[in-house]
């Protein structure tokens, strides 16, 4: 090509023709082609072809052929197929710190039931994609639970409400403000007609705003209601300490813990922290650990906390109080009505508590009556716990009230016509108010009803105004943690839809100018001790330093009320919140719906839990149950309580006390999203339990009747693990899956994990197990490995959702779960040993073992799965043809196949949620845990470019999603070849064993045996 610039080149061609389409295009090509410069170009480029171009026909043909290459040649940017060329422009002024491809982390806090737990939200290119715990926040210390991890899906939920509505018709925020004016005018005169209904609030900014509002409209009342109200604890503590207080537990200081129907590791504002604290006293490290703690659980339903207790008594809910009184009596507190059962057991507990004065604690469950809470505090007083293992502080709530009474007052006033305007922040009282309140009929008497909520739910549909609420990741706010620590909640993204926050609604009601949440929160804090530097520090850290509520000296009253009359007859029903969808607010969250519940491994619905004997009693015999459960089916039963009947599926879980039935509320939603309610691909199950939740029996009671229903045939249940027994007689022998010992046994024989199970020859570390004809493969660089401590795993499911969030794992829906096709890469197996009445329970998280001798690798015909030089079993999605031989050959069954096209490629709002570093898999492809290879690679890249020569990845730089989420720090991951790494140390622990070791798979993921600490004085 000559360098004469007068000659045309293709780029110019493109520019001339670029935007033109259709006939114009061809015409302009024609014109171009007649130009002399074009002739020259052609002669240069195509000497042979240019000659015939004198002939018009040839010219036209030639142009047709050439047009394609003209269009593509020198294409610097791709034009949009439909016409307008779009220019993409890189950042001219890049947002600070933003490097495309590298995520940023912002500290904020997730509110649940009013209390906030600090999180770090990972943000890719300005959109939040993952939630991690904030290591600096006392309620989290870096751990997250399932609710926190799943909240990211809540932000991007396509069923979220997007517009202001009035009875279904779209309106605007200004319309609402306009409609509010006459209401406010009337409220100025008749303040008592204006009511505010909120859930629990700890936010100082919101609290102050409400206080100002109440002052502005004298007589206005603020009601609070949540189905999981915490009233019992509140009232019990008030009886004990003379006012509403907050109890903060310090399990890291406790040698002995006694729970009275308390699931403190799963429930309540501090449960993430409590798991962490408990586990610090539970984990065993050879040579270092002199003693571990001991937990006694007296509970009425199997819980995560109870599952790792050293001693467990399954009793009826009403009997818990008797046991509490017995313990109190044993410690010298005057408490009549003590139970006489299990006297030896109680005696042992009492002695243990006495031996550990000042280092023991008793915790009462939120669902237990106030008297039990009072008893627990009295016992704590007697054992010197107050001020050591439990601190009493002022209440973290802005305005603690008895929420049941608050709602009752509201309903009474509504019925009397005294309520002229009801503004509701969140909540869903139409769905979840106590059944006897008949909330709906009272509600409909109110002339002005406005509901601020995330979804257009049951309450919104009956309200005059529905305002879409902003998600916590979209708005400013603040809140207190379990110990009162304040976090400023900062948004990660501008509101996706036209959402508003409670602060803005209050602002509208206060009549001021539209005050943005940012201004409101900032103004509050600037007026309360902040300055610019502190403000930035608080936002950066995610906590306001030293804002925890100070412990105050307190002494519990020992005036125990007289025991209530013991109910009798029939089943005792226990009504509890669902472990996954809470009180129903997460019913549209597909991740939480499909998450197998910790004790039952059931998904997508609630069931009536019974003990094996109780099931037999109602006519559901052992053999029939085994056959049906094996096929993931069950029978339905009619549950009658307080005169109302609901039809529920029956399920048996080992460890349930006899004659007790547990049911979880939250299901049976009528509106609120495709997953929650409307029939869709996901066909949710579940029964609405609120109709049998009465104000005098919010947590259940005696007198329930259960009648098996056979007329409707069998009912499918999405249970992901129905074979939980590892008793040798049930599984053909001891398979060595769970290796457990007591702490005493461990101290006598630290290598107890060896020799367990038939034909097991010990840990992978001994020379014998290494015996092989083949030379050992050397891993000179990194050798990624993982150790999971089963002593501290509570089965909370935080890791499962974290993995789902990090790796873009799809949900499949109930029907597919029934067909055993759930896609979770990490599952938590729950096994029990011993009698089904009161078994020992173990949780075992099972990710991909990343076997050095992987059975899945040689059987793949296309080599879609291969071994990396660092020990990872790599999965190449785009090579997989889907023969499924690898899944068949995997003894751990950790591989997941996309039987259908499960991934949602279409819903626009879910696209920003996905982790851009992980492929979204299509139909016909196998997937599995990758040890978060995207994180490993990110860390390696960061290490490689660090400084002049780069450096080695340091221990702790790579954390897998599951490891990062675990509240108990049960999972440790790292480089085995790094002698200073934690994982290398754990691999040397004598309690370290590999699952299915004798298959010679040489897994990189190994377990530490479960060590319990039973009291030798107590049998059972």
């Amino acid at each position, binding site marked *: 090509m000559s360098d004469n610039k007068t000659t045309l080149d293709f780029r110019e061609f493109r520019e001339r023709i670029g935007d033109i389409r259709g006939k114009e295009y061809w015409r302009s090509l024609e014109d171009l082609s007649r130009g002399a410069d074009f002739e020259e170009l052609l002669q240069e480029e195509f000497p042979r072809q240019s000659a015939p171009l004198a002939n018009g026909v040839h010219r036209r043909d030639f142009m047709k052929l050439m047009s394609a290459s003209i269009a593509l040649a020198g294409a610097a940017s791709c034009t949009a197929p439909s016409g307008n060329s779009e220019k993409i422009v890189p950042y001219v002024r890049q947002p600070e710190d933003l490097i495309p491809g590298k995520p940023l982390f912002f500290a904020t806090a997730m509110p649940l039931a009013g209390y906030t737990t600090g999180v770090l939200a990972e943000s890719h290119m300005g959109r939040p994609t993952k939630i991690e715990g904030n290591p600096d926040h006392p309620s989290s210390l870096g751990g997250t639970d399932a609710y926190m991890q799943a909240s990211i899906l809540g932000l991007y939920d396509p069923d979220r409400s997007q517009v202001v509505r009035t009875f279904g018709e779209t309106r605007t925020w200004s319309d609402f403000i306009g409609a509010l004016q006459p209401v406010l005018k009337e409220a100025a005169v008749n303040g008592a007609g204006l009511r505010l209904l909120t859930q629990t609030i700890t936010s100082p900014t919101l609290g102050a705003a409400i206080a100002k509002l109440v002052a502005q409209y004298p007589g206005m009342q603020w009601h609070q209601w949540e189905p999981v109200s915490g009233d019992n604890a509140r009232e019990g503590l008030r009886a004990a300490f003379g006012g509403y207080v907050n109890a903060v537990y310090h399990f890291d200081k406790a040698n002995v813990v006694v729970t009275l129907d308390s699931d403190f590791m799963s429930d309540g504002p501090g449960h993430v922290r409590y798991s962490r604290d408990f586990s610090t006293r539970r984990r065993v490290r050879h040579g270092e650990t002199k003693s571990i703690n001991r937990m006694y659980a007296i509970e009425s339903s199997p819980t995560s906390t109870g599952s790792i207790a050293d001693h467990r008594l399954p009793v009826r809910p009403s009997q818990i109080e008797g046991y509490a009184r017995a313990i109190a009596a044993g410690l010298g507190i005057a408490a009549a009505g003590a139970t006489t059962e299990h006297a030896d057991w109680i005696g042992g507990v009492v002695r243990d508590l006495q031996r550990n004065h000042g280092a023991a604690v008793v915790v009462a469950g939120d669902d237990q009556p106030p008297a039990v809470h009072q008893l627990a505090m009295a016992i704590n007083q007697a054992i010197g716990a107050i001020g050591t293992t439990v601190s009493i502080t002022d209440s973290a709530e802005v305005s603690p009230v008895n929420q049941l009474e608050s709602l009752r007052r509201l309903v009474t006033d509504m019925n009397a016509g005294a309520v002229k305007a009801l503004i509701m922040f969140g909540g869903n009282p139409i769905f979840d108010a106590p059944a006897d309140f008949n909330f709906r009929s009272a509600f409909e008497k109110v002339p002005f009803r406005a509901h601020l909520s995330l979804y257009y739910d049951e309450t919104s549909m009956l309200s005059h105004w529905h305002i879409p609420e902003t998600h916590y990741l979209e708005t400013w706010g603040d809140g207190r943690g379990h110990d009162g620590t304040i976090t400023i909640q900062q948004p990660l993204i501008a509101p996706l839809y036209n959402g508003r926050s409670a602060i803005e609604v209050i602002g509208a009601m206060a009549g001021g100018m539209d005050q943005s949440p940012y201004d409101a929160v900032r103004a509050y804090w600037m007026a309360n001790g902040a300055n610019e530097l502190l403000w930035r520090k608080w936002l950066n850290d995610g906590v306001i330093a030293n804002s925890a509520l100070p412990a105050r000296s307190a002494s519990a009253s020992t005036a125990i009320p007289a025991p209530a009359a013991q109910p009798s007859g029939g089943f005792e029903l226990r009504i509890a919140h669902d472990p996954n969808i809470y009180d129903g607010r997460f019913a549209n969250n597909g991740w939480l719906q499909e998450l197998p519940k910790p004790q039952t491994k059931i998904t997508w619905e609630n069931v009536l839990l019974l003990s094996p004997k109780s099931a037999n009693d109602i006519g559901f015999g052992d053999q029939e149950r085994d056959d049906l459960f094996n096929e993931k089916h069950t029978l339905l039963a009619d549950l009658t309580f307080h005169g109302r009947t609901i039809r529920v599926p029956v399920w048996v879980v080992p460890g349930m006390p006899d004659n007790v039935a547990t049911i979880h509320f939250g299901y049976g939603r009528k509106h609120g999203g495709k997953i929650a309610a409307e029939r869709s691909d996901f066909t949710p199950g579940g029964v609405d339990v609120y109709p049998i939740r009465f104000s005098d029996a919010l947590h259940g009671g005696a007198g329930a009747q259960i009648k098996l229903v056979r007329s409707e045939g069998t009912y499918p249940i999405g249970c992901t693990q129905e074979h939980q027994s590892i008793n040798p007689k049930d599984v053909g022998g001891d398979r060595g899956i769970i290796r457990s010992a007591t702490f005493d046994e461990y101290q006598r024989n630290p290598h107890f994990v060896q020799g367990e199970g038939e034909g097991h020859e010990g840990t992978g570390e001994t020379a014998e197990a290494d015996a092989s004809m083949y030379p050992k493969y050397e891993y000179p660089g990194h050798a990624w490995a993982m150790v999971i401590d089963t002593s501290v795993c509570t089965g909370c499911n935080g890791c499962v959702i974290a993995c789902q969030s990090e790796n873009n794992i799809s949900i499949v829906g109930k029907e597919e779960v029934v067909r055993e096709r759930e896609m979770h890469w990490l599952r938590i197996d729950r096994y029990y040993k011993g009698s089904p009445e009161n078994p020992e329970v173990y949780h075992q998280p099972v990710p991909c073992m990343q076997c050095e001798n992987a*059975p899945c690798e040689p059987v793949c015909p296309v080599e879609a799965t291969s071994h990396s030089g660092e020990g990872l079993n790599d999965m190449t999605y785009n090579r997989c043809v889907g023969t499924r031989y690898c899944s*068949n050959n995997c003894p751990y069954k950790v591989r997941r196949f996309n039987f259908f096209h499960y991934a949602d490629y279409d819903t626009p709002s879910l696209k920003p949620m996905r982790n851009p570093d992980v492929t979204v898999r299509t139909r016909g492809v196998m997937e599995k845990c990758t040890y978060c290879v995207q994180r490993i690679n990110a860390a390696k890249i960061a290490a490689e470019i660090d400084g002049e020569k780069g450096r080695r990845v340091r221990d702790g730089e790579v954390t897998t999603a599951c490891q990062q989420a675990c509240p108990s720090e049960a999972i440790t991951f790292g480089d085995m070849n790094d002698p200073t790494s934690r994982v290398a140390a754990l691999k040397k622990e004598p309690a370290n064993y590999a699952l299915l070791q004798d298959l010679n798979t040489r897994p990189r993921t190994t377990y530490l045996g479960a060590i319990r600490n039973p009291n030798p004085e107590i049998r059972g």
Partner: protein
Amino acid sequence: MAHKDETPVHEVRPVTQEVRVPERYLPTPTIEPGHSYASITDHISTIVLRKKTPIGWFVGFGISLILVSVLTASIGKLVFVGVGIWGINHPAGWGMDIINFVWWIGIGHAGTLISAILLLLRQEWRTSINRFAEAMTLFAVASAGLYPALHTGRPWYDFWLFPYPNTMSLWPQFRSPLMWDVFAVSTYATVSALFWYVGLIPDLATLRDRSTNIVARKIYGMAALGWRGSAKHWYRYESAYLLLAGLSTPLVLSVHTIVSFDFAVAQIPGWHATFFPPYFVAGAVFAGFAMVLTLAIPARKFLKLEDFITMKHLENMGKVMMATGLIVFYSYVIEAFFAYYSGNVYERYMWLNRATGPYKHMYYALIVCNGLAPNLMWFKRFRTSPAMLLVTAMFANVGMWLERFVIIPTSLHRDFLPSSWGMYHGTIWDWGMYIGSMGLFLFLLFLFLRFLPMISIFEIRTMLPEAQAAHGEEH
């Protein structure tokens, strides 16, 4: 000097009393007496060349077409919606797809054994059944081949299993038994097709010479590749046929051995067993002979070929079926013994689960079908009754399907970790494709019966006494 009239000294004169030989000791003829070369050729080629197709053929072919449309629907849904329409899941990643694959491939082995091994062993009774059996093999392999191709999650990438030069610079994984399957089944299909075709050439020439329909003559003519029946042609033919028989013989053993490696190389209890190759090969021969009997007994009746497929053939096939059935049953027994003797908890549980677990009725049915039913063949009365042979063969067919069911889903559904135990149930699409594959088989079979001689005309001519005598003189 020879005197014609001289009688030898030791002359044996016939005794007046006739020795009566009981009928059952009389040898069954391989071909009914009374046939000549011409009558054989006439009889067999008339079936093909007759102008008027019998109504029965239309009925059968029509049914097969309906079933083929079921197959088409099943395949269409499978490819467009996904492999999830079947009953497979975690843990049972394979179900009826592989059961049916192994079932069909196993059936094919009888044809090759009859054609190749019996040829090398000089068993002349093979001549009336070998064409038919070899065709059955080909069609069975065709039906079988549907499954490995379509059971993958992304069947449009199946070509990656072949070692072709590609831009990814990737060979397939040669350590995988599925790769070996690719080689084994494709070799099997190729060699069987060649063997069958080469064997057909003289008969195609016969049909070319005898047919009056101009179109038929042209087609048979092209297919006959210019066969003249000259000595040179026969010489080359015999060499080629022998070579192909030699190639096919190891395939009888190797193909199903490779298929058994799909399981034996895996480590699932119930799969991981070294006795799988002989077990599977014996099972394949068993299934194959059962299928040949199932098809031959009605075919000989409807096409009036009892003279050529005589009781001798049926009885011999029954005997082979029983012998291999006994080997298969022995395998079941030995498996139970291994489960006990190994002391391995997983092996033990696997067997206990088979016998007492949720699929125990399949296992008991299997024992009845494969363990008890073949023993009927001990009795000559049953062995020589086409009806009883048919019944036994049907039991064997079902039994071999059950055996693969017991091996595949029953082993997979409960393996090492109880947390992953599940169940497998075939869905309507599983059955649809299975019935559909039978439809494909029948479709091809009916076409074969109509347009090609189901008995090897020239080979059966060698069964005539005159041919036998001539044959004897030559050697």
